[in-house]
């Protein structure tokens, strides 16, 4: 009897913190929706979540194996790959895209062209000292991978939808969300893979 009570108590104690720490997701969504009630109609879609966002939010980017597999396979199906010949664009244009942090903000004008803002999170050309550290360094990226077509395809995929290879990656899905066009992605890929690009040329 006392063991049973002990077990019961223990179960309660163990269960309670978990219960108290997790508010009802529906309640959270209601608070969020109410807090953006005056958003313009065209912006409302940004307030609600798709499946990846839901899972990665609730698991704090630690999906279980089944969730990770689901996210990765949905992501894989989303990628629109150009033919190999068009994978690599113009690295000079790619550099501008990597530098450009504009676009998509409510403070931007309607005709603002979105950049990739890669430097917000990644080190790239060594001469650019204003880089963030939310992602790994990409200096010498192509050179370190022997400029292989396989690596170029993987990089294109990563920028289009990073969840193909890492479910709940914190990198944006530039291609899926149409933040960057296919041509723009090819251009940043060239920035990473062209031997003449400072990303590789400056890297010894």
């Amino acid at each position, binding site marked *: 009897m006392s063991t049973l009570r002990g077990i019961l108590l223990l179960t309660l104690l163990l269960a309670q913190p978990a219960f108290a720490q997790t508010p009802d997701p529906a309640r959270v969504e209601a608070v969020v929706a*109410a*807090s953006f009630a005056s958003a313009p109609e065209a912006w409302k879609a*940004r307030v609600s979540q798709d499946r990846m966002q839901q899972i990665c939010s609730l698991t704090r980017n630690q999906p279980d194996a089944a969730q990770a597999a689901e996210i990765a396979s949905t992501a894989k199906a989303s990628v629109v790959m150009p033919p190999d010949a068009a994978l690599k664009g113009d690295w000079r244009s790619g550099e501008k895209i990597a530098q450009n942090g504009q676009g998509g903000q409510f403070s931007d004008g309607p005709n603002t062209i979105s950049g990739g803002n890669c430097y917000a999170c990644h080190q790239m050309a060594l001469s650019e000292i204003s880089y963030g550290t939310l992602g790994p360094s990409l200096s010498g990226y192509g050179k370190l991978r022997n400029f292989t077509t396989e690596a170029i395809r993987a990089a294109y995929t990563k920028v289009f939808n990073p969840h193909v290879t890492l479910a709940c990656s914190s990198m944006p899905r530039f291609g899926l969300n149409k933040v960057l066009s296919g041509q723009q992605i090819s251009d940043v890929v060239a920035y990473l893979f062209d031997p003449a690009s400072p990303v590789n040329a400056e890297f010894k």
Partner: protein
Amino acid sequence: MSKLLRIFVLCLLFPAASLRAQPAPELDLDKELDRYRAMINDPMANPGYLAVDRGELLWSLSRGSKNVSLETCDLGAGSGVLDGVAAGLPRYFADTDQVMDLEQRLLHCMRGLQGLDTKDVVARRFGSPGKTSDMEDLVAFISNKSLGMKYQASLSHPKERDMALIGEAMFYRRSAINDFSCATCHGDDGRRIRLQSLPDLSKPGDTAREVIGTWPAYRVSQSQTRTMQHRLWDCFRQMRMPAPDYASEGLTALTMYLAKLGDGATMNVPSIKR
């Protein structure tokens, strides 16, 4: 020192504060910031005190259909009590059965107590060159009445704890076209976006305390005294989210979550920030 003289001296020191925003080069700002830090507690040198002074006048100004001042507004410690209230907000208010931050509560008093149509006040919620904000001024004045005090997160009521948990869930909630959550930028120690250091707001401790104890702040880059409402609005902008509604429940929830992490902070307000 007379208030007018103080304002005059400040205008000489910080022409941008009174006239127009002057975006200074980032690196100059960094150097200047150290100098500004030394001035935080000096009413003669911190331009945030201009807002404090304006807020003091607004607090005792009679207006609204009832033509009364805010002086009997209950901010949590009883009618008209100002000392220390900012060091315990947001908190639960029984009369509205709601957890409110300072701005929500002020709007509540303006509407109920003063009978003020707050449309104009809300339209001017964020000051800009040549346009002051009653809300920023009032928050600066009231928060300054907690200067040097210890911040104590108000978490004894179940609705307060609930609010902190909702805020925590929102902190990890990814959305919009970049899939960002607050945690994307504030989830780790020592991260940077470009050259900008990002405070880790995923755990309690000195970083969170430093944040919770320093709002409202005079933002040098904007030449305005800003409140937490504005800071969160600006972060939602970077997240490519729509602008959050002013004084909405979600902002209070996030603030309550941050308050929980920053419990025990020393109130150093209005501070000076980049």
